[in-house]
């Protein structure tokens, strides 16, 4: 049972990580908190479903199209809503609330567009399961873990080592000064939101075949991903990954060895414990001025 639980925990953690990365990216590169990541994932799953199942395009093509659409959506969100709010110099809570409103819109919008019944997302691979250490796992799940690993490394490198990444962080800290250094702040935050929407869409396409696609698919996973991001160190890419996995393992082991009743409780207790005892998370990330 231990091995089985371990593997399910890792797989679940991989999914949380992919979402967590998006949250961390937004926070690190724009200093903002968004609640919409989980729902963008839902949207991504629906888009993927449309391209892949309904229009019958090949998976890779559907994936690329979905990510592009999500990227555009993220950019649009930033340009049409977030930027407008930031320009008005409002409190950051308005941005949070705006993302919550957007998540309502997505949740209700996909129901209008695709109906409220759970949609079937066909498997990507011909094989429905592969064995990992004698435990059968869906290939999509492995892909999910792989994707989050790759994204983690890429994003970490991008944010800390590249000029553009540093510029993004700078823009998050002090937009006025960033402008005066020649950084197109609006563009850089736009790209950030686009990227994290793209990430969420990848997650959506990968978990669609596992869980089916429905309007509230992303809402719980979204909150868990968020917790993962904070536990790891909000704004740190490695932290997001490790936090997500930790959360996945914690949930699974609590269910396995204690009771499924405490499965969700444990996630939030972990979150609040970290916030109170170590708000900088496992990776001791101090991304943005927040004091």
């Amino acid at each position: 049972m231990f091995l089985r639980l371990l593997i399910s925990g890792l797989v679940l953690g991989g999914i949380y990580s992919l979402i967590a990365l998006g949250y961390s990216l937004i926070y690190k590169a724009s200093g903002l908190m968004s609640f919409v990541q989980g729902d963008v994932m839902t949207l991504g799953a629906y888009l993927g479903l449309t391209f892949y199942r309904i229009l019958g395009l090949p998976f890779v093509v559907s994936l690329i199209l979905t990510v592009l659409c999500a990227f555009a959506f993220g950019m649009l969100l930033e340009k049409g809503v977030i930027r407008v709010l930031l320009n008005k110099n409002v409190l950051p809570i308005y941005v949070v609330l705006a993302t919550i409103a957007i998540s309502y819109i997505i949740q209700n919008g996909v129901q209008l567009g695709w109906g409220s019944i759970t949609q079937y997302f066909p498997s990507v691979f011909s094989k429905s399961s592969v064995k990992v250490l004698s435990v059968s796992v869906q290939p999509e799940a492995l892909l999910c873990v792989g994707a989050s690993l790759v994204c983690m490394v890429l994003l970490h490198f991008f944010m800390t080592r590249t000029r553009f990444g540093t510029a993004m962080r700078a823009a998050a800290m002090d937009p006025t000064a960033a402008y005066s250094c020649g950084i197109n702040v609006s563009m850089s935050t736009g790209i950030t939101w686009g990227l994290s929407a793209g990430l969420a869409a990848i997650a959506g396409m990968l978990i669609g075949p596992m869980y089916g696609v429905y309007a509230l698919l992303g809402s719980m996973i979204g909150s868990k991903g968020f917790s993962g991001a904070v536990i790891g160190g909000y704004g740190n890419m490695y932290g997001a990954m490790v936090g997500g996995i930790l959360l996945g393992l914690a949930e699974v082991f609590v269910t396995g060895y204690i009771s499924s009743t405490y499965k969700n409780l444990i996630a939030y207790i972990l979150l609040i414990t970290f916030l109170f005892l170590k708000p900088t998370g496992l990776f001791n990330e101090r991304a943005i001025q927040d004091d």
Partner: protein
Amino acid sequence: MALLQLVDFHYYYGNIHSVKGIDLHVDEGEMVTLIGANGSGKTTTLQTISGLTRARGVRGKILFKGQEIQGKTGDKVAAMGILQALEGRHVFSKLTVEENLKTGAYLRKDMAKIREDIRDVYRRFPRLEERRSQLAGTLSGGEQQMLAIGRALMGRPKLLLLDEPSMGLAPLIVKEIFVAINDINREGTTILFVEQNSKIALATAKRGYVMQTGSIVIHDTCENLMNNEDIKRIYLGAS
């Protein structure tokens, strides 16, 4: 032709008319200062040139090399070669000193030259080199001021705008800063700066504008300004 020219320039914060129609020009290679009492609109003017204020509040013309730049966003203006060291430092608090400097050179591609320029800044402000991997937010007030100036220099501007460069600096450093400003100007960078320490400002620059409650009241060479009785009384102190 003037490198920078403001024609009948106004600025409004909502209904507050904070700059009331000024004309100002800076010629290529010149060093010009803008002095004036608190709240007279100096910062507003500089920030508007850099495209950092709200475009909605602006009336009038801002010409750079004869081209209208009014309404361009900050990054576009920076790309044209106008860089500013902001009042109140505005360092990137969670970036290290060195990352701050590199960000200053964001628009440049020549890595080798950038590294050279970083060394140059460190030579001017050895203090910064000692602190190169410290987060900028934890620097002392004066160190942040040095960093802000250094960062603006990193962009190799055509026109450098400095807003109160001496604020919070020790007397020794103030002198050094102005020596540096002179050097930079001599090396070909045009400079427009705002300064409360009018004595040193007038001693450094060639021409000066004096602002009062949003208008330019006097405009003359620094030499003449230093001998102006009103200026002496208000800005240079009795001594």
